[in-house]
């Protein structure tokens, strides 16, 4: 690896990812030339990944508070009060670059990392979700990545024993060289037993627990802060390999210790490992810290201070303990056969001092290192607005039935069962609504009547056409998916996946998306409590579609009232929300008309809120037997998804005269839901009383879907077409990795 005695200069600084100006600031802070280890510490702490230097100025606009928010952004994960003395702890995190380099391990370690962020705070993880974006499915490499990523997510989550209950998947050529793997974990803790990372108590021992340290993923943080070039194969650090078995032991050992009063502060070792965990704990607590690297449990021989400080070996945690509880703590970790080592202590110097083999390898003042990290106001340019399409001018050449059959079979709308069948979604015995059963996953809290509703959402093609509208829409869809099961939306975790921030058009997309998200979060009382930013998602100058992924969490006091989307026979179908036949950026336009243009559907936040509150009210009043939000593919796809889920047909009546049929049935107007109710009249009356558009669009029953233009499709046949894509794609010989070899 890097030779410790290499002389440090501008050029080495650049290799480590520091700009000339940043290196000058390092010299100014230290008043001398840094050691290689010190340069490494600065480079990772000031990397995009750890310092948010390009995004911080924009993220400040996001609303982060509400009466039920206990901890917003800034802690390891967000914490919200869900009642009965309990708190939900949750966060989403990306592992995009590693998943491109090694799909299985990249995705697996992504899941492991986000779970540590959650149980670090004292919460037992109860659910995982995953938001995935892949390149063109016609490319064999895409298939290899999908196979590896899905195996990796399942391989890690299933082994640790946390149910994977939801997520989303899209395909687009823009992700060819940069797949997105965003993993979300939700945990439950007693709200008076939340653990934080701010160190306190000069003299208190600093304790390392978990796996041994190897040369894994050194410079992963700076790696996650650079675009891929053709040479990125060579730049590779040692790929981190996940050990879910050790993670499971670590969860049980930490939660056992957390039931005592031994812990003063605790922090997982994530990106930039020992460096960021020790620096953040000490600087948050306003104390100094001393580390003796000879005490660090090591997997390999001859590791340098530089390597140990930057290693990203997985399944490790750093804690500050009460000295009088040290032995009790050690006993717990020995029982779980995990390493436990005192590697330092807190000081009053306000500096981080790192010793190795009797040599001081680093001695840095913490305040400038952590708090004076560079902050950039990068130039931005607005994305050019697209014209609003007039549906009357877009002719329908194939009719409703054939369009529906093609849409529900296409990669972006086909059944994801092939994926979720590889994820253990029932472990824990609390999963009320599994993947595919409802717009949001519903997971009961053990020993309680209440449940959490969980979803992830983002529609990148909307964001590319109009980042601000796309940002609003992503938040609104998450809020809508929670409302559609009867849950009260509480808060958001967001994963901002974008291209190279040094390009004004990318930074402009970022700024606009944040504006849209902020407006929606504000209007829907849906604050952001945690998140993650992943920039430089581009290869040879080609960026991904702007992808602000929203993870939404809601609560439903009585889990037995949650509704799914499966249709049952002999019910009325009611469409709630206004329709204009919006075809711009719709999947019908892309898949059937072969166009990817037009302005995306706008979100009217007032109407959104009114419709969602109305639907939730009807569900909790017991009036609704099934509910599905209208999203990708529009109204007819939503009805078809309900029919396929229930194995029940439906007969649909003609839509409004003033909207062309294909635009009404496939348009993607926002803020809409399909309700299956015993009797439509009272529901429609209630909606009108609340000033919300609602119309009866048909009723359920039989084995066929009968369309207003007379066409009929057998639901079984529809389901077969819906479920075909993934299995046939994966079983095709080309580009296979047999059995996850």
């Amino acid at each position, binding site marked *: 690896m890097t030779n410790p005695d290499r002389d440090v200069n501008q050029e080495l600084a650049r290799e480590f990812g520091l700009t000339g100006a940043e290196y000058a600031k390092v010299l100014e802070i230290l008043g001398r030339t840094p050691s290689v280890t010190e340069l490494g510490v600065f480079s990772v702490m000031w990397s995009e990944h750890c310092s948010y230097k390009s995004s911080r100025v924009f993220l400040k606009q996001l609303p982060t508070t509400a009466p039920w928010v206990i901890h917003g952004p800034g802690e390891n994960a967000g914490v919200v009060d869900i009642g009965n003395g309990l708190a939900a702890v949750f966060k989403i995190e990306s592992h995009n670059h590693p998943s491109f380099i090694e799909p299985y391990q990249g995705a697996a370690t992504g899941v492991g990392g986000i779970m540590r962020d959650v149980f670090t705070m004292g919460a037992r993880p109860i659910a995982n979700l995953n938001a995935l974006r892949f390149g063109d499915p016609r490319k064999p490499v895409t298939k290899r990545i999908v196979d590896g990523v899905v*195996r990796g997510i*399942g*391989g890690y989550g*299933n*082994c*640790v*024993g946390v149910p994977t209950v939801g997520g989303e998947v899209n395909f687009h050529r823009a992700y060819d060289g940069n797949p997105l793997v965003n993993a979300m974990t939700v945990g439950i803790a007693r709200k008076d037993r939340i653990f934080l990372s701010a160190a306190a108590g000069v003299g208190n021992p600093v304790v390392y627990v978990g796996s041994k340290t190897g040369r894994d993923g050194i410079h992963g943080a700076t790696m996650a802060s650079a675009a891929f070039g053709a040479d990125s194969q060579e730049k590779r650090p040692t790929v981190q390999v996940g*050990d*879910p*078995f*050790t993670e*499971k*032991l670590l969860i049980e050992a930490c939660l056992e210790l957390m039931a005592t009063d031994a812990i003063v502060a605790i922090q997982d070792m994530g990106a930039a490992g020992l460096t960021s965990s020790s620096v953040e704990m000490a600087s948050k607590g306003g104390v100094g810290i001393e580390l003796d690297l000879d005490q660090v449990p090591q997997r390999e021989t001859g590791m340098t201070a530089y390597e140990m400080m930057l290693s990203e070996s997985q399944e490790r945690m750093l804690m500050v303990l009460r000295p009088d509880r040290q032995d009790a703590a050690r006993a717990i970790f020995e029982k*779980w*056969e995990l390493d436990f080592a005192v590697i330092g202590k807190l000081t009053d110097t306000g500096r981080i001092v790192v010793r190795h083999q009797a040599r001081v390898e680093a001695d840095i003042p913490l305040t400038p290192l952590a708090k004076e990290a560079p902050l950039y106001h990068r130039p931005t340019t607005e994305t050019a607005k697209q014209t609003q399409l007039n549906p009357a001018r877009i002719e329908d050449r194939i009719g409703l039935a054939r369009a529906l059959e093609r849409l529900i079979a296409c990669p972006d709308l086909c059944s994801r069962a092939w994926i*979720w*069948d*590889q*994820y*253990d*979604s*029932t*472990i*824990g*015995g*609390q*999963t*009320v609504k*599994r993947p595919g059963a409802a717009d949001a996953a519903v997971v*009961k809290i*053990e020993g309680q009547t209440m449940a959490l509703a969980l979803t992830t959402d983002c529609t990148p093609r909307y964001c590319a056409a109009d980042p601000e509208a796309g940002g609003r829409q992503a938040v609104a869809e998450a809020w809508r998916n929670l409302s559609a099961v009867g849950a009260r939306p509480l808060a958001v975790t967001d994963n901002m996946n974008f291209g190279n921030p040094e390009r004004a058009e990318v930074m402009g997309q970022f700024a606009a998306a944040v504006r849209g998200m902020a407006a929606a979060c504000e209007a829907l009382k849906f604050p952001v409590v945690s998140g993650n930013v992943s920039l430089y998602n581009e290869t040879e100058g080609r960026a991904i579609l702007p992808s602000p992924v929203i993870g939404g969490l809601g609560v439903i006091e009585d*889990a*037995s009232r949650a509704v799914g989307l499966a249709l049952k026979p002999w019910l009325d179908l009611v469409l709630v929300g206004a329709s204009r036949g919006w075809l711009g950026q719709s999947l019908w336009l892309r898949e059937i008309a072969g166009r990817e243009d037009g302005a995306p559907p706008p979100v009217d936040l007032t109407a959104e809120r009114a419709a969602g509150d109305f639907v939730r009210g009807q569900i909790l009043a017991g009036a609704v037997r099934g509910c599905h939000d209208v999203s990708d593919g529009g109204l007819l796809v939503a009805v078809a998804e309900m029919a396929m889920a229930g194995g029940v047909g439906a007969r649909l009546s003609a839509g409004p005269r003033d909207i062309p049929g294909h635009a009404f049935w496939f348009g993607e107007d926002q803020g809409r839901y399909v309700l299956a109710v015993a009797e439509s009249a009272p529901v429609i009356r209630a909606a009108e009383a609340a000033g919300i558009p609602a119309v009866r669009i048909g009723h359920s029953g039989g084995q066929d879907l009968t369309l207003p233009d007379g066409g009929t499709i057998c639901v079984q046949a529809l389901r077969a077409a819906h479920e075909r894509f993934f299995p046939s794609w994966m079983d095709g010989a080309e580009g296979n990795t*047999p*059995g*996850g070899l």
Partner: protein
Amino acid sequence: MKAGVVLFPGINRDRDMVIALERAAGHAPRMVWHTETEISDLDIVVLPGGFSYGDYLRCGAMAAQSPVMRAVCEFAEKGGHILGVCNGFQILVEAGLLPGALLRNAGLRFISADCHLRVERADTAYTSRYQRGQVLRAPMAHGEGNYFADDVTLDRLEGDGLVAFRYVTPAGEVSLDANRNGSARSIAGIYSPNLRVLGLMPHPEDLVDPLMGGTDGKPLFDGLAAWAA
């Protein structure tokens, strides 16, 4: 019923099992740590699902070597009742308490989905609350549930009526599609010759509450509680 749930490092369906046993028995089972050797106070030993020792090397192989398993084997010799589910089944097989082996699923992928099981006999401590031939639904969640044994062993299991459950269609027919992990003769669970040791791959403990989609697994635990009462 005095049930003991054995905990090996990496076991993760213990909470599910505790909930199911507690619902049936009215009180919590005793948790037995993998280093314990004294379990003679128990009516029934339960090995729950999970990934003991990460399922590294072979599922259940390392757990089968742990101290508590010596006690469990003695418990079996004395005619004790032992239930092994999923990883628990794999451990029983690795420990030689049940014949055969569990190979990787035929499709070489983890399968998490509901399956349908046919009750092959209803006269055991585990199935007294079911009818013979009854079909129940249960979630399966495993990567290595493909039951294998040589033909002699399979013939003996069938001849002696030691097949506990088979993978079937909702209508109760044995079929290729219903047997997703590729198990020999669609076998999902088997008994020891004295019918007191039961191993099965699917998870009845995860279907004991209507809220989670059904209660098809509940009779197994109610039956056990009644037998032990």
